[in-house]
């Protein structure tokens, strides 16, 4: 059976095969650059709602909330889930947490209710937060996020059901095209065989 004896052709062949398989995989199952998630959240027993977008990479996050009287937002660096623990220390209890993980877009969406005194919740975030923009009946927050950053919105419901739409669009990402990957992979595999044949003849 023919197999390589020299190290260089073995390495080139390995890279070539890997590029062919990875390019084909990327086309079929690779990254999606945008995603969104919507939920009708039952807010009857929750005076405040916290909605968050937690991406792994950079991109533009948007949160639309309908059915609330006020919405505040803040940018966080690191894991914003630690914020929930700190909220617990202020006497606020998180209830009815609903999340959605979109692996292909690399984003984790979270909505949770905060029980306790809504004024405490508002005061806890004061100084850190900004007011969300109101467009029609909805409050909208749209922010560009760097890696390790996330966005959290604190909203105060005025209806029994709050409609929340969270979306994320990846920026700064790109990978080799299927054609280029296949061509480069195939070229490397052929070159490795040619090098092996030449070195054997010598």
């Amino acid at each position, binding site marked *: 059976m023919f*197999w*390589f*004896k020299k*190290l260089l052709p*073995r*390495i080139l*062949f*390995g*890279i070539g*095969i*890997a*590029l062919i*398989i*990875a*390019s084909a*995989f*990327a086309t079929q*199952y*690779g*990254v*999606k*650059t945008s995603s969104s998630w919507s939920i009708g959240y039952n807010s009857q027993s929750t005076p405040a709602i916290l909605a968050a977008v937690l991406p*792994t*990479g*950079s*991109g533009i996050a948007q949160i639309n909330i309908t059915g609330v009287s006020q919405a505040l937002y803040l940018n966080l*660096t*690191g894991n914003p889930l630690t914020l929930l623990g700190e909220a617990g220390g202020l006497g606020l209890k998180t209830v009815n947490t609903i999340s959605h993980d979109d*692996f*292909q*877009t*690399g984003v984790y969406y979270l909505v949770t209710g905060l029980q306790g005194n809504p004024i405490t919740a508002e005061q806890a975030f004061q100084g850190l937060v900004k007011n969300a923009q109101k467009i029609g009946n909805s409050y909208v927050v749209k922010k560009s996020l760097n*890696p*390790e950053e996330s966005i959290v919105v604190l909203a105060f419901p005025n209806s029994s059901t709050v409609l929340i739409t969270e979306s994320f669009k*990846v*920026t*700064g*990402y*790109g*990978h*080799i095209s299927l054609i280029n*990957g296949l061509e*480069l992979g195939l070229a490397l595999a052929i070159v490795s065989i040619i090098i092996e044949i030449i070195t054997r003849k010598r």
Partner: protein
Amino acid sequence: MSLKKSWELALIDLWDSLRPPSFDIMLILVATLSGILSVLEPVTTPPAVGNAVLGAVLFVTSLYLALRASSDLVNLVQTGVMPLYLTYPISRRNISLIIYLTRVLLPSIILLGIPAIVAGIMLYPVVGKNISEFLIMWIAYLIQAQLYGSIFILASNKSKSTGTAAVVSITGYFGYTATSLILALVGSIDNIKILTNIANSMGLYNPVYDILNGIRTPTWEIFVVPVIFIVLFITYVIYFTRRFEV
């Protein structure tokens, strides 16, 4: 003469260490794995590409090193190849360095380097933003592999059985990573900062990643792995030079 003989010995042992087809299978496996991992989730910075790809590759590399640098080395002693190596007109210290080079350093450079090249080609628009940051992450993973490799090679020098050497090496590797995980978990649950910091420092790539991303991290974290590696490496060279018997 000594340099020529050292080169000759290095080539002979390197052929054994990287012999086909097992190395080729491993190479194609890690290269393909890295290509697939690089496009599974959208990583948008060069250090994040390094972490997404090299974490899994380091695991496979460590297992390969555990076989080649540990049980295979004992096998060389048992089959009488090592006594032949020791008859070369080269100092024992040089032989120990050559064996480290061919059993640990070069295989880990190739097994971590090829996947990094594949990931770099697959994600060239991302890696191209800052190749030096990607290289720094790669070096951090390479030093981490040297730490594991020096544990393995030391275990094989002390052990006279291939089975014992393999078990001690793999136990040492999993013990080290499990300790890091447990410390991180306990530190996170009980909010004990020092435990989280120690766990973080046990993988050199963690503080390096944090520094590259502008996340504040204690400076000492970056020295833990290199210092342990240097201590283990010097111990190996001294043991091989003075006390190693075949």
